[in-house]
């Protein structure tokens, strides 16, 4: 089976091992240790880590299209946000009549803005299966339509990047509009529970953290499977010489569309897991700068490696957390400096350094053997 192919790769196995160990360890440290213990992992940290994992999955999705397909998407935040909104809508509906106005159907902000009834696109989101389906379908459909148009007319390079940016920018403006019925600038927030579990309980948050870990693992394996397949090589081929690939008989636009849609769906899943953990989804997730930032994570971690994207996402966000805490006035210097220095010094990102190290070690190993 093509899906099992990644498990033959050492790097994937190693990645999964580390991920599983890390998640388990955090879980154990969180549950088993008393808060006084210096090794205790607080609920706050668990939430933080869960968020990082979502970002990591998002970065993997971006790396799939950027690293392997050569599509620099500056609009992946849109798919992330759409997934998030799908989840957010579900969570809103779960509130039921516990909202401030006590309306059993309408979310607070609708009551507040005098909406008479639920807009049609809000229907169905009270059912978990439907909402979760939409988490995949909404970003997938957007990617499908958008990608179909763009790839069909062979929009490439910066042109593609910029229209993805235009897409997310337009969506941001649209979602900001209160008429859209997604809560405008305030977005969706003040959630109570998910699948019947209380979102304000530590256990649920731990569960979400583990779910994020699982999603990341699955997403990673899926991407690896695509990349390691012949399709992955077609992707790389079309990245480097699109026209040539066509002359070999590959329908490049379909390959691009397929991978783009898969990537969008992964981004959607990441967004869906992100929302209950941070407790809010608002149009700022659509901001073009956020999408650029995702690309920066990937570049920092190392493009076209997938695990590099994971490292980049976690590292940058960890750095952000630390810096904003330690030096609130100057953290942008640190972050900006990190981007600059690492690009200049690490041309292939962190993954590049790791690969280089490994290569060196291997070489020293092999030279030792004959001696």
């Amino acid at each position, binding site marked *: 089976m093509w899906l099992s192919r990644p498990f033959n790769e050492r790097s994937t196995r190693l990645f999964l091992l580390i991920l599983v160990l890390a998640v388990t360890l955090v879980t154990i440290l969180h549950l088993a240790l008393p808060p006084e213990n210096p090794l205790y992992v607080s609920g706050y940290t668990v939430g933080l880590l869960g968020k990082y994992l979502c970002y990591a999955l998002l970065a993997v999705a971006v790396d799939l299209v950027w690293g392997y397909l050569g599509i*620099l998407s500056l609009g992946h935040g849109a798919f992330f946000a759409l997934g998030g909104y799908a989840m957010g809508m579900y969570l809103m509906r779960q509130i039921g009549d516990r909202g401030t106005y006590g309306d059993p159907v309408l979310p607070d902000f609708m009551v507040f803005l005098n909406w008479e009834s639920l807009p049609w696109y809000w229907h169905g989101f009270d059912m978990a299966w439907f909402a979760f389906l939409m988490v995949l379908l909404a970003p997938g459909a957007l990617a499908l339509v*958008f990608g179909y*148009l*763009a790839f*069909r*007319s*062979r*929009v*490439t390079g*910066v*042109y593609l990047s*910029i*229209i993805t*940016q*235009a*897409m997310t*920018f*337009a969506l941001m*403006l*649209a979602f*900001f*509009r209160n008429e859209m019925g997604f809560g405008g600038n305030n977005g969706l927030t003040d959630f109570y529970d998910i699948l019947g579990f209380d979102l304000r309980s530590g256990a649920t948050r731990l569960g979400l953290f583990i779910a994020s870990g699982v999603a990341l693992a699955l997403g990673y394996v899926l991407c690896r499977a695509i990349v390691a397949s012949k399709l992955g090589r077609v992707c790389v081929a079309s990245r480097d010489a699109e*026209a040539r690939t066509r002359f070999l008989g590959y329908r490049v636009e379909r390959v691009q569309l397929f991978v783009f849609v898969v990537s969008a769906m992964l981004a959607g899943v990441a967004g869906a897991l992100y929302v209950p953990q941070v407790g809010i989804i608002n149009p700022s997730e659509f901001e*073009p*700068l956020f999408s*650029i*930032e995702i*690309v*920066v994570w990937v*570049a*920092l971690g190392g*493009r076209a490696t997938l695990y590099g994207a994971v490292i980049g996402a976690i590292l940058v966000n960890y750095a952000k957390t630390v810096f904003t805490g330690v030096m609130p*006035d*100057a953290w*942008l*210097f640190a*972050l*900006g*400096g*990190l*981007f*600059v220095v690492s*690009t*200049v010094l690490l*041309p292939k990102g962190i993954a590049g350094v790791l690969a280089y190290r490994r290569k060196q070690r291997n070489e020293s190993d092999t030279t030792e053997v004959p001696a």
Partner: protein
Amino acid sequence: MRIPCTLMGQTRCHAAMTRIVNLWLLCLLLIALPFAAMAQDDADDGQALLEALDVRSFQDKAEAIEAIIQSEDERANDWLQALLDGDLQRHKDDGRFVIITDNVGREWPARDALTGEDVGEISRRELSRIDINNALRSQLRSALSMVELYTGERDERLDAAEGLIGDVDDELADSLESRLDDEADADVRNRLNQALAVYRLEQGEMDAVETLSGSLNSDVRIALSRAAEGEGAVADAARAALVDIEQKLKVNRGLETLYFGLSMGSVLVLAAIGLAITFGVMGVINMAHGELIMLGAYSTWMMQQLLPGHPGLAVLLSIPVGFLVSALVGVIIERSVIQHLKGRPLETLLATFGVSLILQQLVRTVVSPLNRTVTTPEWMSGSVAINDALSLTLNRLYIMAFAVLVFVGLILIMRRTRLGLEVRAVTQNRAMARSMGIRATRVDILTFALGSGVAGLAGVALAQLTNVGPNLGQSYIIDSFMVVVFGGVGNLWGTLVAGLSLGVINQILEPWAGAVLAKILVLVFIILFIQKRPRGLFPQKGRAAEG
């Protein structure tokens, strides 16, 4: 002559007051002008007059103002002007009235309102201001403008006459008639005629309609529509005149929209044109472009700080300064970061993103996180009136001209100098260009400096329109990329056309769809347009572009 305001509605009272004050000022003027100023040394009189101003109620203040005018005190003008400017203040302890000459900081220099002698700096804690409100302000202003009608320069007379349209009553009409005879300037006469015609139209005179027809002045239109409500010949004529006016207004609105569009477009072009060089020609995805714009804007502010009191000169000087500052920063960025990323264009995105964060925070730390004030010089503020319904804002006119200049300059540099050729050669095939003897490093530095400098110029212009703050750049970076790409990467003309057309489209859509939706529609338009033309407005065609 006194009208008890309490018996009237507040606004109507003020209108009446205005008229009274106007007349009084007029008299004052007519009397005072021929005679030399008489010495006024009984200070008590003045003190009393001013004291009457220091009351809470604005009605009472209006009366006090009137009293001042009636007093025929020669310092009245001074007081009223100070009052209008908010400079008339009272010392809390000794009750002395002073006129402050500067109101920045905690200690304010002042002079005595009665004697005019300098009293040094006074802590603002010690002072309490004689407040006025909008009603009083317009009362004072129209009073002063009446004076201008008689004594002012031509433009002032014109403004004053225009302000009279719709405000003429019986008493005023007579004095205006006589003023009309003395007035030499045709435009002013025309205005005065209109003002009188509106008055006569209210009296139901037919020939007034004739005078007024075709005028785009809003007060005239109001008068006409009021007249049109009635019955009879005058009303019919008024209706006909209105139809004609509406027609003209429509045309004017179209022109206005076009102007708005072009002016918005030239802002876009200015913001994007530097990027068209660094990104379009050199291929550096320069996320710090916005910050370079911001630095240009800050140089305007800086120049104005350095040259207080000469905002105009400062703005002019900030053109070269803004260029140099941004160009210099551009060179630093190029040397420290971008030169290490040769052949890795996508990574320039990452590094310059970092640079943009650093620059933003730098400005926040070094200058301030708050917006800075940039003063619009006299000659750039206001607007030129094409007619009563269409006036073009001056600052935007200047910016449009500036954009054209910058664009032409750039085109010349890129077309006529070796730099233009060399930079394209270097970006297309660096190794080969060097093998042909082109000093690639120098070309890189110069080009990046040029692109950055132009961004600085954009900043100088934007400082006249929008916030000068650390976030300035971020609000333009996305638009800039959009414009460059829409026009076709590497094509300066494309950038020009793209910027202008996006501006016009936006402004056409805006009244119809609202600002938010218009923006969304423009974005959707760009997306769809790129489907049709995957390489922008002016694509590079043929084999060459493919590879």
